[in-house]
């Protein structure tokens, strides 16, 4: 099988626009959480989330991505995905390949829910004004695979054009599946990741109904996402996108690209248990991790850093147990969802990028708000970043429906 490396990274996160600005804030221990500003959420059980900043330092500038006319025609998850892809391609130096290069470049950017807002708004519009008022851009602006479609059209990439939909493991599955397409010679370059924009009345109300969101910390939203902490009460919703440029190793070397890391392992599994909950032993997670390690050809003890799924729900400690069974306890593990919230379909991609930064900088980002943790020898980076020499990192992502993905990344 051909080797696959990461040569470009881009993201739009609740901390900032861009990988560099997000990373700096992440390791400083900043939180992206706050009272919801996009709409009046005061009547909902949860009134806070991690919104992408549109103002202030590190703000995301939508005008730099699409003009207002085009922006009206796409849901925000597409806007974020296109922006993250632009940054990743710029970083990779792959913005203007040859015609042959474009034929060998594909896109696989997924989303957990896609254009939820557009669908909700259009449903209200039909009710109020009738079906003739539905925009011709509603469907192409809401479909999940239209991030991949838009990125393909924008950059002329004519290779595989695909989209993953596996709830909160979408981003990890997209990177893993895209890497396989390269390994199997279906493409030389893949633009892969996830995008999500679920912060809306219907999104919050829906996850509230599942009892999945934190509800207790409206007075101090930045303390609400607290993975592994005894007082955690649910996840904090985030939004944004993470996109990587994956490339066949020799292809990257031949053009002198900067290689950020290698994707050495990818494992998938299903729980066959429950629509929203993992089994008490999360043996599905264990099997996904073991499968990824088998691909990587290493034992679990070689993993230096784990970016946990760690959503700040009851499942956190179940994941920790599974990680300890697979990797032992001499390792560093953190949940960056403590800082940026849960980006659902974008989470796995954003967190894989954090893993790459950890491998390259030797800094494991902190788990914010972890005050009363579980009894474990694993270093959970409670409230501060941890330095170390990390050769291998593992990133876990689990989704509703009982879907699991693990990625193993290696410093190159």
């Amino acid at each position, binding site marked *: 099988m051909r080797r696959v490396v990461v040569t470009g990274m881009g993201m739009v996160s609740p901390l900032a626009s861009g990988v560099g600005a997000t990373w700096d804030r992440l390791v400083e221990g900043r939180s992206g959480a706050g009272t919801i500003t996009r709409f009046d959420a005061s009547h909902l059980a949860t009134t806070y989330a991690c919104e992408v900043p549109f103002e202030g330092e590190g703000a995301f500038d939508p005008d730099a991505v699409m*003009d207002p*006319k085009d922006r009206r025609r796409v849901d925000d998850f597409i806007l974020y995905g296109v922006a993250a892809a632009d940054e990743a391609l710029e970083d990779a130096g792959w913005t203007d390949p040859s015609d042959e290069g474009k034929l060998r470049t594909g896109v696989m950017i997924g989303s957990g829910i896609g254009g939820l807002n557009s669908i909700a708004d259009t449903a209200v519009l039909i009710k109020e004004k009738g079906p*003739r*008022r539905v*925009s*011709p*851009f509603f469907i*192409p602006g809401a479909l999940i695979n239209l991030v991949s479609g838009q990125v393909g059209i924008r950059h002329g990439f004519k290779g595989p054009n695909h989209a993953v939909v596996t709830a909160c493991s979408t981003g990890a599955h997209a990177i893993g599946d895209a890497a396989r397409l390269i390994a199997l010679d279906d493409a030389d370059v893949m633009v892969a990741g996830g995008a999500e924009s679920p912060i809306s009345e219907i999104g919050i109300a829906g996850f509230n109904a599942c009892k999945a969101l934190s509800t207790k910390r409206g007075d101090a939203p930045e303390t609400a996402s607290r993975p592994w902490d005894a007082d955690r009460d649910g996840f904090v919703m985030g939004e944004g996108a993470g996109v990587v440029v994956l490339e066949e190793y020799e292809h990257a070397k031949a053009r002198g690209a900067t290689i950020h890391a290698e994707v050495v392992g990818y494992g998938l599994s299903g729980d066959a248990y429950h629509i929203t909950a993992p089994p008490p032993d999360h043996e599905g997670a264990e099997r996904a991790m073991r499968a990824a390690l088998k691909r990587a050809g290493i034992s679990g003890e070689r993993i230096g850093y784990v970016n946990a799924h760690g959503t700040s729900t009851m499942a956190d400690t179940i994941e920790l147990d599974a990680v300890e069974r697979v990797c032992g306890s001499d390792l560093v593990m953190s949940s960056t969802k403590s800082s940026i919230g849960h980006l659902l379909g974008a989470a796995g991609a954003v967190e894989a990028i954090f893993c790459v930064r950890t491998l390259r900088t030797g800094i494991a980002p902190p788990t914010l708000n972890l005050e009363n943790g579980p009894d474990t020898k694993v270093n959970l980076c409670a409230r501060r970043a941890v330095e170390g020499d990390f050769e291998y990192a593992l990133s876990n992502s689990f989704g509703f429906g009982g879907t699991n993905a693990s990625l193993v990344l290696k410093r190159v």
Partner: protein
Amino acid sequence: MSDTAERVKKIVVEHLNVEEDKVTKEASFIDDLGADSLDTVELVMAFEEEFGIEIPDDAAETIQTVGDAVGFIDKQK
């Protein structure tokens, strides 16, 4: 220029992101102003909204140019 023509022009400029002076009476939405089939659907919806009229699908198909639109709208009023 009639009031209808002015309002049609404004809508076309806004929706298709084109220069005002390109929006002549003879200009074809698709051939001259860069619209695709989805843009023309949206334009017709914008005309309906602006002028408080209904443009049935078979009539919409006959509206190819800026002048066609102005003519159709004036007949409805």
